Protein backbone atom coordinates (compact mmCIF):
# COMPACT_ATOMS: atom_id res chain seq x y z
CA UNK A 1 0.00 0.00 0.00
CA UNK A 2 1.26 3.46 -0.86
CA UNK A 3 2.31 5.70 1.98
CA UNK A 4 -0.72 7.50 3.34
CA UNK A 5 -0.99 11.26 3.64
CA UNK A 6 -1.65 13.21 6.82
CA UNK A 7 -5.25 13.81 5.82
CA UNK A 8 -5.79 10.12 5.16
CA UNK A 9 -4.30 9.31 8.51
CA UNK A 10 -6.76 11.73 10.09
CA UNK A 11 -9.68 9.96 8.41
CA UNK A 12 -8.46 6.55 9.56
CA UNK A 13 -7.97 7.86 13.08
CA UNK A 14 -11.53 9.21 13.12
CA UNK A 15 -12.78 5.87 11.80
CA UNK A 16 -10.97 4.11 14.63
CA UNK A 17 -12.45 6.49 17.19
CA UNK A 18 -15.93 5.85 15.80
CA UNK A 19 -15.49 2.07 15.93
CA UNK A 20 -14.22 2.34 19.51
CA UNK A 21 -17.30 4.41 20.40
CA UNK A 22 -19.49 1.66 18.89
CA UNK A 23 -18.06 -0.86 21.36
CA UNK A 24 -19.48 1.15 24.26
CA UNK A 25 -23.03 0.87 22.94
CA UNK A 26 -25.47 -1.76 24.29
CA UNK A 27 -24.81 -5.21 22.86
CA UNK A 28 -28.22 -5.65 21.25
CA UNK A 29 -28.00 -2.50 19.11
CA UNK A 30 -24.22 -2.40 18.63
CA UNK A 31 -24.45 -3.93 15.17
CA UNK A 32 -26.66 -1.04 14.01
CA UNK A 33 -23.98 1.42 15.10
CA UNK A 34 -21.30 -0.60 13.33
CA UNK A 35 -23.29 -0.77 10.13
CA UNK A 36 -24.02 2.92 10.23
CA UNK A 37 -20.35 3.83 10.80
CA UNK A 38 -19.16 1.52 8.04
CA UNK A 39 -21.65 2.76 5.48
CA UNK A 40 -21.00 6.43 6.32
CA UNK A 41 -17.27 6.05 5.76
CA UNK A 42 -17.48 3.79 2.72
CA UNK A 43 -20.08 6.03 1.11
CA UNK A 44 -17.48 8.78 0.71
CA UNK A 45 -14.49 6.53 0.06
CA UNK A 46 -14.47 7.30 -3.65
CA UNK A 47 -13.78 11.01 -3.18
CA UNK A 48 -10.62 12.15 -4.94
CA UNK A 49 -7.84 12.33 -2.39
CA UNK A 50 -6.81 15.75 -3.71
CA UNK A 51 -10.22 17.19 -2.86
CA UNK A 52 -8.98 18.62 0.42
CA UNK A 53 -11.90 20.99 1.03
CA UNK A 54 -14.52 18.26 0.87
CA UNK A 55 -12.49 15.81 2.94
CA UNK A 56 -11.77 18.39 5.62
CA UNK A 57 -15.44 19.31 5.76
CA UNK A 58 -16.41 15.65 6.08
CA UNK A 59 -13.88 15.08 8.86
CA UNK A 60 -15.26 18.07 10.74
CA UNK A 61 -18.86 16.96 10.40
CA UNK A 62 -17.85 13.41 11.25
CA UNK A 63 -16.25 14.56 14.51
CA UNK A 64 -19.39 16.54 15.40
CA UNK A 65 -21.52 13.52 14.70
CA UNK A 66 -19.28 11.28 16.78
CA UNK A 67 -19.56 13.73 19.68
CA UNK A 68 -23.34 13.64 19.40
CA UNK A 69 -23.70 9.89 19.08
CA UNK A 70 -21.11 9.08 21.73
CA UNK A 71 -23.61 10.18 24.39
CA UNK A 72 -24.57 7.12 26.45
CA UNK A 73 -28.18 8.33 26.25
CA UNK A 74 -28.24 7.33 22.58
CA UNK A 75 -28.91 3.63 22.60
CA UNK A 76 -29.98 2.83 19.08
CA UNK A 77 -29.58 4.13 15.56
CA UNK A 78 -31.61 3.55 12.39
CA UNK A 79 -30.21 0.63 10.44
CA UNK A 80 -30.93 1.49 6.81
Amino acid at each position, binding site marked *: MAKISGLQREVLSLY*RQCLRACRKKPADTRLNFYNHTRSEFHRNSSINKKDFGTIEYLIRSGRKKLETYEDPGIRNIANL
Partner: protein
Amino acid sequence: MFRTTLPRLARHLVYSAPRYQAPIARPIARSSLFQSTRITPTSTAFQAARCYSASAGLSHEEVQGRIMDLLKNFDKVQDVSKLNGESHFHNDLGLDSLDTVEVVMAIEEEFSIEIPDKEADAIHSIKQAVDYILAQPDAH
Protein backbone atom coordinates in the same frame (compact mmCIF):
# COMPACT_ATOMS: atom_id res chain seq x y z
CA MET B 1 -15.04 -41.78 70.57
CA PHE B 2 -14.33 -43.51 67.32
CA ARG B 3 -16.87 -41.22 65.69
CA THR B 4 -14.88 -38.11 66.54
CA THR B 5 -11.50 -39.46 65.58
CA LEU B 6 -12.46 -40.28 62.06
CA PRO B 7 -13.34 -36.74 60.99
CA ARG B 8 -10.30 -35.43 62.79
CA LEU B 9 -8.12 -37.87 60.94
CA ALA B 10 -9.78 -36.93 57.67
CA ARG B 11 -9.26 -33.22 58.34
CA HIS B 12 -5.67 -33.83 59.18
CA LEU B 13 -5.19 -35.65 55.91
CA VAL B 14 -6.86 -32.87 53.93
CA TYR B 15 -4.69 -30.19 55.47
CA SER B 16 -1.49 -32.08 55.11
CA ALA B 17 -2.21 -33.35 51.62
CA PRO B 18 -1.28 -30.27 49.57
CA ARG B 19 2.21 -30.36 50.94
CA TYR B 20 2.90 -33.48 48.88
CA GLN B 21 1.20 -32.30 45.72
CA ALA B 22 2.75 -30.46 42.86
CA PRO B 23 2.93 -26.76 43.65
CA ILE B 24 0.78 -25.97 40.63
CA ALA B 25 -2.33 -27.66 42.02
CA ARG B 26 -2.18 -25.93 45.39
CA PRO B 27 -5.11 -23.78 46.50
CA ILE B 28 -4.42 -20.28 45.29
CA ALA B 29 -5.13 -18.48 48.58
CA ARG B 30 -2.54 -20.39 50.57
CA SER B 31 0.48 -19.62 48.48
CA SER B 32 -0.54 -16.78 46.21
CA LEU B 33 2.52 -14.85 47.31
CA PHE B 34 4.90 -17.46 45.98
CA GLN B 35 2.92 -18.75 43.06
CA SER B 36 4.21 -16.31 40.48
CA THR B 37 7.74 -17.58 40.96
CA ARG B 38 6.72 -21.20 40.68
CA ILE B 39 4.70 -21.07 37.49
CA THR B 40 6.85 -20.31 34.54
CA PRO B 41 5.17 -19.09 31.34
CA THR B 42 6.52 -22.06 29.44
CA SER B 43 5.04 -24.55 31.90
CA THR B 44 2.93 -27.14 30.14
CA ALA B 45 1.79 -28.86 33.34
CA PHE B 46 -1.88 -28.98 34.23
CA GLN B 47 -2.92 -25.80 35.97
CA ALA B 48 -5.91 -25.99 38.30
CA ALA B 49 -5.98 -22.30 39.21
CA ARG B 50 -5.57 -19.79 36.44
CA CYS B 51 -3.20 -16.94 37.12
CA TYR B 52 -4.48 -14.00 35.16
CA SER B 53 -1.23 -12.13 35.46
CA ALA B 54 0.71 -14.95 33.86
CA SER B 55 1.45 -14.79 30.17
CA ALA B 56 -0.89 -16.92 28.09
CA GLY B 57 2.04 -18.04 25.97
CA LEU B 58 0.43 -17.80 22.54
CA SER B 59 2.02 -19.88 19.84
CA HIS B 60 2.68 -18.60 16.34
CA GLU B 61 0.25 -21.12 14.81
CA GLU B 62 -2.53 -20.23 17.21
CA VAL B 63 -2.25 -16.49 16.60
CA GLN B 64 -2.12 -17.01 12.84
CA GLY B 65 -5.08 -19.39 12.93
CA ARG B 66 -7.21 -16.99 14.91
CA ILE B 67 -6.40 -14.07 12.60
CA MET B 68 -7.14 -16.19 9.52
CA ASP B 69 -10.48 -17.33 10.97
CA LEU B 70 -11.31 -13.71 11.61
CA LEU B 71 -10.53 -12.77 8.01
CA LYS B 72 -12.43 -15.76 6.67
CA ASN B 73 -15.57 -14.37 8.28
CA PHE B 74 -14.92 -10.83 7.07
CA ASP B 75 -17.37 -10.08 4.26
CA LYS B 76 -15.01 -7.73 2.39
CA VAL B 77 -12.43 -10.40 1.66
CA GLN B 78 -13.00 -11.18 -2.02
CA ASP B 79 -10.80 -14.18 -2.60
CA VAL B 80 -10.60 -16.55 0.37
CA SER B 81 -8.30 -18.88 -1.58
CA LYS B 82 -5.56 -16.25 -1.41
CA LEU B 83 -5.71 -16.32 2.36
CA ASN B 84 -2.44 -17.60 3.86
CA GLY B 85 0.11 -16.62 6.46
CA GLU B 86 1.77 -14.13 4.15
CA SER B 87 -1.33 -12.45 2.68
CA HIS B 88 -1.19 -8.71 2.24
CA PHE B 89 -4.48 -7.02 3.13
CA HIS B 90 -4.49 -4.71 0.13
CA ASN B 91 -2.54 -6.56 -2.57
CA ASP B 92 -3.85 -10.09 -1.97
CA LEU B 93 -7.18 -9.69 -0.25
CA GLY B 94 -8.39 -6.53 -1.99
CA LEU B 95 -9.11 -4.59 1.18
CA ASP B 96 -8.93 -0.79 1.17
CA SER B 97 -7.51 1.30 4.00
CA LEU B 98 -10.89 1.54 5.78
CA ASP B 99 -11.26 -2.25 5.70
CA THR B 100 -7.74 -2.61 7.04
CA VAL B 101 -8.69 -0.42 10.01
CA GLU B 102 -11.69 -2.67 10.60
CA VAL B 103 -9.54 -5.80 10.48
CA VAL B 104 -7.00 -4.36 12.92
CA MET B 105 -9.82 -3.33 15.26
CA ALA B 106 -11.26 -6.84 15.07
CA ILE B 107 -7.81 -8.26 15.90
CA GLU B 108 -7.69 -5.90 18.89
CA GLU B 109 -10.97 -7.27 20.15
CA GLU B 110 -9.99 -10.89 19.47
CA PHE B 111 -6.82 -10.65 21.57
CA SER B 112 -8.22 -8.11 24.07
CA ILE B 113 -5.51 -5.53 23.61
CA GLU B 114 -5.48 -1.95 22.41
CA ILE B 115 -3.21 -1.12 19.49
CA PRO B 116 -2.15 2.55 19.34
CA ASP B 117 -2.89 4.40 16.08
CA LYS B 118 0.74 4.62 15.07
CA GLU B 119 1.36 0.89 15.30
CA ALA B 120 -2.04 0.05 13.82
CA ASP B 121 -1.18 2.09 10.73
CA ALA B 122 1.89 -0.07 10.19
CA ILE B 123 -0.03 -3.37 10.03
CA HIS B 124 -0.73 -4.22 6.40
CA SER B 125 -0.45 -7.99 6.28
CA ILE B 126 -1.23 -11.11 8.27
CA LYS B 127 2.45 -11.64 8.94
CA GLN B 128 2.84 -8.16 10.44
CA ALA B 129 -0.26 -8.67 12.58
CA VAL B 130 1.00 -12.03 13.88
CA ASP B 131 4.41 -10.56 14.69
CA TYR B 132 2.80 -7.65 16.49
CA ILE B 133 0.54 -9.89 18.60
CA LEU B 134 3.44 -12.18 19.52
CA ALA B 135 5.40 -9.13 20.72
CA GLN B 136 2.57 -8.14 23.07
CA PRO B 137 2.88 -9.76 26.48
CA ASP B 138 -0.74 -9.03 27.47
CA ALA B 139 -2.38 -10.45 24.34
CA HIS B 140 -4.43 -13.58 24.98
